[in-house]
């Protein structure tokens, strides 16, 4: 049988890869993809903890459902912002988007 540790290590690795994507990517859409990976890692953790420690209680499931809702809202608004910015500035490279630099 699979011990809890495997899931945690797997989720941690996925989270770190996503975080790297968020920090290192230039393209705003790619940054959002990194965020998706991180949220997925969180969901794996939540479900693994639920499965191994808190099984019959549905708190874990509710958490996962709320994370899904948050992910959907974040993607929708984030991509809408990216598209809107692209229309005005014709770029989605985050470094070029600093308003302060003008």
């Amino acid at each position, binding site marked *: 049988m699979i011990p809890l540790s495997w899931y945690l290590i797997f989720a941690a690795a996925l989270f770190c890869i996503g975080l790297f994507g968020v920090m290192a990517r230039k393209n705003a859409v790619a940054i959002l993809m990194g965020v998706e990976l991180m949220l997925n890692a969180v969901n794996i953790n939540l479900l693994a903890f639920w499965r191994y420690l808190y099984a019959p209680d549905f708190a874990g499931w509710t958490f996962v459902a709320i994370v899904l809702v948050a*992910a959907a809202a974040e993607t929708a608004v984030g*991509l809408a912002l990216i598209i809107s910015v692209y229309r005005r500035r014709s770029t989605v490279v985050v470094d070029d988007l600093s308003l302060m630099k003008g």
Partner: protein
Amino acid sequence: MTIQQVFFLAVAAITLFAAVMVVSTRRIMHAALWLILALFGVAVSFALLETGFFAVVQVVVYIGAIAILIIFAVMLTRQVFLDVGPQLNRGWWIPAVLVAGLYAALVGVLSTWSGFQTQAAALPEAASDLSQFGLALVDVNAYAVPFEVASVLLLGALVGAIFVASDRKGVER
């Protein structure tokens, strides 16, 4: 090693490889394709956790909706389409080192935790009963508030995103 363990390792390896490709591949469209594979791997790992509901929901929401939306957005922002030039920031090795350090710290902290090697107990019958989850979702003493707040949050996201995305008076190209 049991068959289940081998299967888990294979799924995890594929998922992590896909995730690495998501953050490193040059063409943003291919990154989206790899993202779909990674999301599917996560869905399989949910099924391994005996939460079939979320395994299927993962496919419906993430692959069926979010991934398609991301692909739409990639195509709408055309200028990065062929993706010439490096896709990573110049100092990309700094986050790489940071992330590697974070990973080591996470695993280190986790391995000192007493529950790290917990084995799965048999899943109680009530835990796979979706109607119990449904009852809990509308029970005022349980999760009725998150349930309603979720709908308000989604309404806010819908209104906000439509407002932002459809600025007809904005600069049309």
